[in-house]
């Protein structure tokens, strides 16, 4: 909670107003959707598969243009497409999207390279961060030599170096096995404590959303018109043990009840 009040005075890191979108000839995925993400906040969007989460991220990352509404990133009144061109967003897609022909070092340096940093300087900055991310000694390896969890770490490092203040993480751990996922969640929490960037995290895993976030936004109905909100009042820093806390169980019950209610048709109830 402390983090939320701390940043409540500043301009939001991300502000979405009246967003509408549909693919040609298909029903609306989003209708007049509005929400804000504060500076330094870790927010999860919890939603069932196929509801349009990835589409939302592609709009925020400037890869798709919404039919109506504005997306403001940072203090400037930028459209999402402009912000992404300026490298203000670190987008981490569901797949790790590592280039098989590049080493860990050069994969992680991609974003810096594209923003005009010299290759030497880019490599130096990657090498500096590798140990802190548990990637020490992997710099000369190719992606196919790494495990799924390690690949996601490299992918995250690439977003971290390529983007500015706002990070969009699209179900980054959904393809990992349960054990690796838990260790990656704890890893992300540690890294976030170090860097304190604003993170918007998509997931369909209730436990994951609660463990990581300051706030959980729930999208249940289609088209998405509102996101109902749950403040996660668990203390930080957190580890996976937080999931055993009675307060965690209580929050999980609230979330599940809400999801159950919206699924059974009584949509729009705020948690």
């Amino acid at each position, binding site marked *: 909670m402390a983090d939320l009040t701390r940043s409540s005075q500043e301009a939001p890191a991300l502000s979405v107003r009246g967003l509408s979108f549909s693919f040609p000839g298909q029903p609306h995925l989003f209708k007049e959707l509005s929400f804000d993400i504060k500076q330094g906040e870790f927010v999860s969007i919890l939603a069932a598969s196929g509801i349009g989460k990835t589409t939302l991220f*592609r709009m925020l*990352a*400037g*890869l798709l243009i919404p039919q109506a509404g504005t997306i403001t990133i940072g203090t400037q009144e930028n459209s999402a497409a402009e912000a*992404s*061109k*300026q*490298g203000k*967003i670190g*987008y981490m*897609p569901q*797949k790790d*999207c590592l*280039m*098989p*022909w*590049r*080493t860990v070092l050069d994969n992680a340096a*991609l*974003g810096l*390279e*594209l*923003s005009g940093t010299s290759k030497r300087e880019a490599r130096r900055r990657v090498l500096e961060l590798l140990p802190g991310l548990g990637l020490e000694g992997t710099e000369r*390896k*190719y992606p196919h*030599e790494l495990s799924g969890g390690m690949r996601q770490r490299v992918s995250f490092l690439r977003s971290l170096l*390529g*983007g500015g203040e706002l990070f969009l993480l699209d179900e980054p751990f959904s393809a990992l096995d349960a054990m690796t996922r838990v260790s990656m969640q704890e890893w992300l929490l540690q890294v976030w404590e170090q860097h304190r960037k604003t993170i918007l995290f998509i997931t369909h895993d209730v436990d994951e959303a609660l463990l990581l976030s300051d706030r959980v936004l729930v999208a249940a109905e289609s088209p998405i018109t509102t996101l109902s909100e749950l403040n996660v009042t668990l203390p930080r820093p957190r580890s996976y043990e937080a999931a055993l806390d009675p307060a965690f169980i209580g929050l999980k019950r609230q979330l599940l009840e809400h999801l159950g209610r919206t699924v059974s048709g009584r949509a729009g109830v705020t948690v």
Partner: protein
Amino acid sequence: MSGKIKSNVPVLLFVVLLAAIWEAGTSLFDVPHYIIPKLSDVFVSMWDNRQLLGKHAVTTLWEALLGLGISTVAGTLAAVWIDRSSLAKKTIYPLIVGSQTIPIIVLSPIMVMWFGYEIWSKIAVVILFTFFSIAVNTADGFRSADPDIGALMKTMGAGKRDLLLKWKIPSALPGFFTGLKMAAAFSVGGATLGEWLGGESGLGVYTKRASNMLRADAVFSGVLLLSAMGILLFLAALWLEKAVLSYRRS
């Protein structure tokens, strides 16, 4: 490297065994020399005519390499065009894929008609044999480029040039080399066919003349050299592929 040699031992031993069967079989069953000459006679003929064979081999190799080089450039450019233009993707690409079902050999006399009996008709036939595999495989390589990587690069501010150099081309290289290896193997066949249709020199001319004279030992020595040339060109392309795509080995 020693592991690589070890893995090739069985096939090398098998080739030696086949050579031994050839040599022993022709003597044992008294096969007429104009049907299958003794392997040793083929080597003797090769040695006796080494200067002549060398001259003809250089001609054929030159034709194959020149045709292959032109096909590599033109095929790659065609693939880039197909990748960049959606119109070309819909019109040229299916045509090129479809054209692979035409027996290319039947088009070869047209090349002679257009380009005469000089070296250019042979090169044209080589191009006919090699262009399509390079164009189609490279175009497929471009198509295989992961669109998610491209999208990610765009969020990092990549321009058109970045996308081409850092995403499209590296993605297309494996396909390109598949095409190049096939083309390298086809190129010698194309050059030989071009020479058969009319020419003054080259191993195709040599084998045809020897065949007309029923000199089986000379025909076989030409055939062995042509085979070796095809294998060597293929191996050169393979080596180049391994050198460029070194990330696949580790």
